[in-house]
């Protein structure tokens, strides 16, 4: 069974600073995909960034980037130049050959002025 672990239930960062959210996963599969989803307060989850396991290059989307360490089964999310609108719950998720997304428990990020 695949598991996804987010070890930081809560984090806070000051506006304009950089923060890294950690995620580890466990799988015996070689081909899979990893995702970070963001859920702002009272809003739906939206995809922030995705990474294919076969790609060595770390994915980047504007201020969001990942540090994908396949051997260590680690997939952390870095948010640069944090903005107040980044305040949200962040979920790491894993998907292999099936349809299901396997989620971690989430990290609640608070960006303060």
């Amino acid at each position, binding site marked *: 069974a695949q598991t996804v672990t987010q070890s930081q239930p809560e984090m806070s960062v000051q506006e304009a600073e950089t923060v890294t959210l950690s995620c580890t996963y466990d799988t015996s599969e070689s081909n899979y995909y990893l995702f970070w989803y963001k859920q702002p307060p009272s809003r*739906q989850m939206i995809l922030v960034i*995705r990474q294919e396991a076969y790609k060595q290059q770390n994915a980047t989307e504007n201020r969001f980037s990942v540090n994908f360490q396949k051997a260590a089964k680690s997939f952390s999310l870095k948010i640069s130049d944090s903005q107040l609108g980044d305040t949200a719950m962040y979920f790491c998720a894993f998907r292999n050959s099936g*349809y299901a997304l396997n989620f*971690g428990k989430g990290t609640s990020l608070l960006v303060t002025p």
Partner: protein
Amino acid sequence: EPEVTQTPSHQVTQMGQEVILRCVPISNHLYFYWYRQILGQKVEFLVSFYNNEISEKSEIFDDQFSVERPDGSNFTLKIRSTKLEDSAMYFCASSEPRDRALNNEQFFGPGTRLTVL
């Protein structure tokens, strides 16, 4: 921008009653999903649906659960006889009709909070 919508936003029911949670996926999407999140726990996959049939389900999705696409727009989750432990936030999601592309983005609705008393 098109969004997945869900109704109602909050449903309160008595134990043993049937509930139907409704979702309107994004119009050109063909893959549909239900997830749930019990308070304080992680989001869990329930079921995926494609071409009018279940394509994958988790062990949570037992005989008490069923899904249906009754018309061209709605996607429903029915819980036949609710239990206290069914209290959770239920999320619907949909994704584009690329052939099971594993990196397909799943677009999520805002959720329905189900409270079973």
